[in-house]
């Protein structure tokens, strides 16, 4: 209960930042296109720094075990989501953007700051397996979903700054190498910007949204509730059935991180990819905005559900 309350508070505090980004555009201080600069900064510099600094912790067998558990959970849940979406796609006539929105959550720039403020910096480490699995899938499977004729660029996945930073972080973690003080403090303080910058860019994007369109379509509500309630509940039920939180020490906290990632709103990458590959990027943007708005309520509720049954 207390954690849900804290979560609600963190999410609201992030909503305040979103509001600031939104107000920045609405008041004319910032332009709508400026969100690209912020997004580039966040994707190419700030997030990789966050990843690097997450891995700058003491190596211990427990942490390795936690990482492996989180990796297994991430692979499994993505598999389940993809299968489940395939099953739903036929009867409901889901299109590519809708499928992508159901499967892929915003596990990066939303979850990392949440985990930092809720569980502490040392838990950020456990967001990386989910992120890694997601990035790989989103540049392969998701691209195919959004644009079936797109050619896959495996090179691009490897060059993704977050993947590179995760690899570098892992090398440093397993080798127990520490960055020199000057670089480490720079990386730490840059990484700490992940929350505000991510929220600003979401707010700036929202300022460009057509709100009438956002709230009108009933179908969009259904997709968003699927992403925010049904899919994460699926994860909670699977964890509950496996009983893993009862016999493995520390599993409850590690899987809570996975749970948070699983109940996040629709990934921003869906809109970006739709934009890039000429699919319906407006619809993707609408789904994204709508899911961010609802997540303020649903995320604390689902965390409460997780804590009750797992």
């Amino acid at each position, binding site marked *: 209960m207390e954690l849900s309350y804290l979560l609600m*508070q*963190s999410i*609201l*505090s*992030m909503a*305040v*930042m979103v509001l*600031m*980004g939104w107000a*920045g555009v609405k008041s004319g*201080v*910032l*332009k709508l296109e*400026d969100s*690209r*600069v*912020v997004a*580039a*900064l966040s994707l*190419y*510099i*700030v997030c990789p720094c966050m990843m690097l600094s997450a891995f700058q912790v003491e190596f211990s067998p427990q942490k390795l075990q936690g990482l492996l558990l989180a990796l297994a959970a991430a692979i499994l849940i993505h598999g389940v989501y993809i299968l489940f979406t395939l099953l739903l796609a036929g009867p409901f006539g889901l299109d590519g953007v809708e499928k992508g929105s159901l499967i892929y959550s915003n596990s990066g720039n939303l979850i990392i*700051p949440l985990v930092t*403020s809720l569980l502490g910096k040392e838990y950020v480490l456990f967001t990386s397996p989910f992120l890694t699995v997601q990035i790989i899938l989103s540049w392969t499977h998701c691209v195919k979903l959004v644009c079936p004729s797109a050619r896959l660029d495996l090179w691009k996945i490897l060059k993704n700054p977050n993947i590179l930073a995760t690899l570098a972080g892992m090398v440093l973690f397993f080798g127990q190498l520490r960055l020199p*003080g*000057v*670089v480490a*403090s*720079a990386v730490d*303080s*840059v990484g*700490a*910007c992940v*929350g*505000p*910058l991510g929220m*600003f860019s979401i707010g700036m994007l929202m300022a460009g949204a057509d709100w009438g369109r956002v709230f009108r379509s009933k179908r969009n509500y259904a997709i968003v509730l699927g992403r925010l309630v049904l899919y994460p509940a699926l994860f909670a039920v699977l964890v509950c059935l496996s009983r893993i939180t009862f016999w493995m020490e520390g599993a409850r906290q590690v899987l809570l991180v996975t749970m948070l990632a699983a109940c996040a709103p629709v990934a921003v990458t869906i809109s970006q990819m739709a934009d890039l590959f000429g699919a319906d990027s407006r619809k993707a943007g609408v789904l994204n905005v709508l899911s961010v708005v609802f997540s303020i309520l649903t995320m604390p509720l689902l965390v409460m559900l997780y804590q009750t049954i797992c």
Partner: protein
Amino acid sequence: MENILSMAFMALVGWMAAKTGVIRPGGATVLSAFCLYIICPCVNIVAFQVDRGPDTQTGLLVTLVAAVGIQGLYLLVTTLLAKPFRLDAVEQGSLIYSNAGNLIVPLVTAMLGREKILYACAFRVIQIPLMWTHYPWLLNPKAKTDWLKLLRNPNILSVGAGLFLFFSGLRLPGVVSGAVESISDCMGPVSMFNIGLLMAEIDWSLLLGSVRSWLIALGRLVAYPMLFILFTAATGVTARLPGAQEWLLITLLACSAPVAVNVAQIAEVSGGDGPRAGAVVALSTLLSIVTMPLMALLYQMFC
């Protein structure tokens, strides 16, 4: 020293981001707007969210008096120097106005802690109105000062709000203060990136041949802060008043900062030589990596 190097490293990252094309040209303008309109106001408000003990009030008073004194002195000295050295408006502005905001705030936070930022704000409260009235007047004596615009400057507004909260003892509600605090923590990285981006867009050839620019930069970074050290040492206030040494260290840092980025920005809009002002900003920022720790050392020896 370590803090300054770590900040220089962030500027380097920003520079590389611009050079590799990750951030497009023009990105610096976006980040400046961000700093000016969103991050700085948050910093100013957070700075004043501290307990209003007698110590804090004395400190605030001391730093305010010091800020008025030193900036008055700088104005005077610069006016005296202007004739014999034929300093133009941009040069005078570069000597007087230091980057007391987006460089000093993160530095003070890293070195002394967040609760000390309000003493840096005391310097800015004096500097900002001066910089937006006196300096445009230097550039163009005929232009009328837009007082309303000055009042609407987000920094002035937020310092006003911060002071109000401080004296009334009001605290922001948890959700808002959480947001404002984490935004204010971005001040260092974002403004360093910004400086890095600006440096990537600078025409360095403007500087190589210009002995004058080097002299101006060194005047700003060495001669002017030394004036402050001399005066503080002469008054002997640090020996008499407990805590004064730390408070005035913050004023010293503000005095020994590189040329304010605003000097180039205002020159641009008021018809001065913007690119050259930008080059002096960049040069002094680079040199400050060495001079600022030296000045702090000197201060600690004499005061």
